C-alpha cells in the first residue's frame, strides 16, 4: 500500500501511539527495580571508603542502565509487529494511505522516544543518588576533619573528584545510542521472524554476538593461519553484525578516563548509521511481506 509523499505527521502519529501502547504495558516498571537497586546499593556501599563507594555505585548503575536499556529495546521492538498482527491493528493502519516504511519508522520512533525517556529517567535517578551521597560524604568530612582549612579543602576536592565527573553524561548518551541501534536491529529481525519469541531470542543472540564482533574482526584481519572457512565465518560475523563493543565506553569512563569529543561524536555517528542501515533493511523485507 503506497501513501504518496512522506508525511511527518503520519509518522509522529504512529510513534505517539506506539509510545502510549508501550506505557500502557507498564514497561516503566523496570524503573522501580532500578531505583531499588541503585538506592539499595548506595546505602549498602556506605561501608566502604568513599572512593570505593562512588566507584562501585557508578559501575553498578551504568552497568544496570546498559542492561535495562538494551533488553528494553529488544523486548519493546520485538513485540511491535507480532502484537499489531495479533490485534489486527496493522490491517487498519496499512489499509489507509500509509506506506509500510512510514509505519516502520513510526514504530521505531515510538520505541526510541520511550528509550530516550528511560535514559533520562535512569540517568537522572543515578545522578541524584550520586550527588546525594557526595553531599553526605562532604558534610561528614567537614564535621569530622579538624585540620587546617587547606587540608580540609584538599580533602573535599578529592571527594568531589571521586564522585561526579562530566564524562558520565556522554557515557549515558552512548548507552542511549547503543539501545537505539539494538531497537532498530530487533525491528529488522521482527520483519521476518515467525513469532515475537523468535525475534527476542534471535535479537538476544545478536546482542551477545555483537559484543564479540571486534574479536571476530581481529581474527579475520589479524593474518592468523587458519582454514579458509574459519576466516570466512569470522569475516561474515564481522560484516553482518554491529560492533557493540564500540559503544561500551562506560567501563573506561567510570575508571576515570575522559572521552575525547571526536571519539564521542564518531561513536554517536556510527550508532546512527547502524540504526539507519537496519531500518532500511527492515523496510526492504517488510515491503513485500504477506500479512
Amino acid at each position, binding site marked *: 500500500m503506497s501513501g504518496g509523499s512522506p508525511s511527518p505527521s503520519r509518522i509522529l502519529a504512529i510513534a505517539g501511539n506506539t509510545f502510549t501502547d508501550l506505557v500502557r504495558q507498564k514497561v516503566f516498571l523496570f524503573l522501580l527495580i532500578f531505583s531499588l537497586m541503585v538506592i539499595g546499593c548506595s546505602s549498602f556501599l556506605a561501608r566502604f571508603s568513599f572512593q*570505593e563507594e562512588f566507584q*562501585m555505585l557508578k*559501575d553498578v548503575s551504568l552497568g544496570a542502565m*546498559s542492561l535495562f536499556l538494551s533488553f528494553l529495546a529488544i523486548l519493546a521492538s520485538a513485540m511491535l509487529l507480532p502484537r499489531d498482527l495479533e490485534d489486527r491493528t496493522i490491517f487498519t493502519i496499512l489499509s489507509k494511505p500509509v506506506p509500510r516504511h512510514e509505519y516502520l519508522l513510526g514504530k521505531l520512533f515510538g520505541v526510541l522516544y520511550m528509550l530516550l525517556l528511560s535514559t533520562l529517567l535512569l540517568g537522572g535517578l543515578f545522578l541524584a543518588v550520586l550527588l546525594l551521597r557526595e553531599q553526605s560524604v562532604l558534610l561528614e568530612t567537614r564535621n569530622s576533619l579538624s585540620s587546617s582549612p587547606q587540608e580540609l579543602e584538599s580533602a573535599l576536592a578529592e571527594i568531589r573528584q571521586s564522585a561526579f565527573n562530566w564524562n558520565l553524561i556522554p557515557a549515558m548518551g552512548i548507552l542511549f545510542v547503543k539501545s537505539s541501534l539494538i531497537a532498530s536491529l530487533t525491528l529488522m529481525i521482527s520483519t*521476518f521472524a515467525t513469532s515475537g519469541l523468535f525475534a527476542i531470542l534471535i535479537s538476544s543472540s545478536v546482542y*551477545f554476538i555483537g559484543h564479540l564482533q571486534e574479536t571476530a574482526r581481529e581474527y579475520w584481519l589479524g593474518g592468523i593461519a587458519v582454514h579458509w572457512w574459519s576466516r570466512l565465518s569470522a569475516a561474515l560475523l*564481522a560484516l553482518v553484525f554491529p560492533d557493540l563493543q564500540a559503544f561500551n565506553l562506560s567501563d573506561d569512563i567510570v575508571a576515570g578516563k575522559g572521552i575525547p569529543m571526536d571519539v564521542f561524536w564518531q561513536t554517536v555517528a556510527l550508532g546512527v548509521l547502524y540504526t539507519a542501515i537496519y531500518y532500511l533493511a527492515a523496510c*526492504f523485507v517488510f515491503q513485500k511481506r*504477506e500479512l
Partner: protein
Amino acid sequence: MTGRVNPLRVLVTILFLVLAGSLILPWQIELQHLDRSARLRSATLDLGLRERVGQAGFLAALSGFRAPLAAFLWISAHAAWERTEWGKMVTLFDSVTALQPRVLLYWDIAAWHMAWNASASALQDLTQPSEALRERSARQYVALGRDFLERGIRNNPDDYHLYESLGRLAAAKELNHAAASDAYAKAASFTNAPAYLSRLAAFESSESPGRQREAYQRLLSLYRSGKQQRVPTLFKLLHELELKLDIPEDQRIHDTIPEAPSNVPPASPSITPR
C-alpha cells in the same frame, strides 16, 4: 505471527548488510584505534579470567558488563577481608584488576591489603609457631602487594598515583630506600604530581647508603627551588648531610628551620586514605 517473507528478499538483505558492513569496516577500525589511543576499550580478557570468574561471569564480561562484575567481585573481596581469607582475596583481586585494569583504586587497595594487612596478619598468626616462617609469609604478602602495583603501573603508565604507592611500599614495608626514592622520583616527574613527591624522593635517597651525595644535591636543588619546598625535614636532612659530606662552611645553608610544615604528604595509600 503469520505472514510469509520472500526468502530471496532475506538473502538480498543479508547481502546488503555485508555490503554496508564492508563500507563501515575501515571506519570501525579507525574508531577502534582512536579509542585505544584515548586509552578506551583496551582491556583484554583472557582464558585465565574465564577460569577465575566462571563461565557465566566470563560471558557477562564479554557482553559489556565488566564494570558491574568487577564491583560485585570487589564486594566479595571485602567480605573475604572481613573473614581474613587472604588467599581468596588474592584470587578475587586478580579477577577485579583483570576486568577493570584502568581503575587505579583497585590496584592500589589490592596492594595495600596484601602488603599491609595480610603481611601484618601473617606476622601475628599464632597457628604458625615458627617466627621465621611467619616472617617469610609476611614477606611473600609484601611481594604480592608490590606485584599488584607493578602490574597496575604497566596498565596505567600515565598516572603518578601507583608510583607513589610503590615508593611508600618500598620505604615502609621493604625498607628499600633506594627503590623508594626511584619510585617517588618517577611519580614526581609527572606534570600533575604534587610537590611533596620530589621531597620524598630526596628524603628516601638520603637514607639510602651510597646515595648521600646524590641526596644532598637533590635536597639543595629543592631548597633553591623556592619556599614551598623548605619544610623542617628538608633543613634537618640538609644539615645532617652537610656534616656527613663535610661540605665547606661557605657553601652550607644557614637559614633557620621553619616552625610548621606548609603541606604534608597524605597518609597511605595515595588513593584511599585509611
